């Protein structure tokens, strides 16, 4: 074997090791879009709660009005569904383009790893909403989502771990500063997603696209 052959052999082995254990069909653009949905959702939610005409220190509504609560939860669920839908769609597209399968050992591992923190967090949030304790909903969203990302990082690009740690930090800060839930929520689910999405797109997707 000559130099080039040996080198390409070594590269292909390393690539296979990565491909067999990591979900690399994740697309940075899904992060950017999920961030945008979150920002639009946060703006809509803010309008629901605070109203249009309110100046500083004046609210048209409060979260504990049942009708407002239902609409805010509806917006949040819509953002979640759109984000997951976009993520799956873009990943399937990327996998097809690269001739990989979407449903493999790595994607199963990824879902299993994320499942426990996400379901736990989701149930905790439902309990909080039912019990009328709204103060810790935004922090819980951020902390449990962050934990899910840290767990998921083992099965995909390592950058996801950093994103997870930042979400956890934001969640804890949000718990420390009650009343600014929507600000931290927008920073975490909106701004961080957009930033990380752009970085990951430039790093992994641009050459593949």
């Amino acid at each position: 074997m000559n130099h080039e052959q040996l080198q390409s052999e070594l590269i292909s082995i390393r690539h296979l090791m990565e491909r067999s254990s990591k979900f690399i069909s994740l697309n940075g653009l899904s992060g950017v879009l999920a961030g945008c949905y979150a920002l639009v959702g946060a703006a809509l939610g803010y309008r629901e709660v605070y109203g249009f005409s309110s100046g500083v220190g004046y609210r048209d509504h409060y979260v504990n009005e049942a009708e407002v609560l239902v609409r805010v939860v509806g917006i949040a669920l819509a953002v979640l569904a759109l984000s997951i839908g976009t993520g799956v769609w873009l990943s399937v597209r990327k996998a097809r383009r690269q001739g990989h399968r979407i449903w493999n050992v790595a994607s199963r591992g990824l879902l299993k790893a994320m499942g426990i923190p996400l379901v736990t967090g989701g149930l905790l949030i439902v309990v909080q909403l039912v019990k009328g304790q709204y103060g810790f909903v935004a922090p819980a969203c951020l902390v449990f989502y962050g934990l899910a990302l840290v767990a998921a990082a083992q099965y995909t690009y390592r950058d996801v771990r950093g994103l997870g740690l930042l979400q956890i930090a934001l969640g804890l800060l949000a718990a420390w500063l009650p009343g600014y839930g929507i600000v931290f929520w927008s920073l975490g689910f909106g701004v961080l997603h957009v930033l990380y999405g752009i970085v990951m797109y430039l790093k992994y997707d641009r050459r593949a696209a």
Partner: protein
Amino acid sequence: MLEHFDKAFENRIRLQVMAILAANERYDFNALKELLEVTDGNLASHLKALEKAGYIEVIKAFVGRKTNTSYRATDQGKKAFAKHLETLAELIQNQKP
């Protein structure tokens, strides 16, 4: 120089199987088949050879009534694979024009 290479890894599919098992705790037969795009018989014969060499071990489990066969690299196998990669890297280094 090639005599330093492990005989068990002379075959490309065997080397690929070893690479996958080195990167994962375990991997099942069907997942290996899908990833490597080989036939059942072909893959089975290479797995047998690696098992004979003591590089991998078979884990049989039941999922419902079906058997699910997965494989795991032994310590010996992991060492041999790491050594093979090292040799490969050295060769590349030495051949540098």
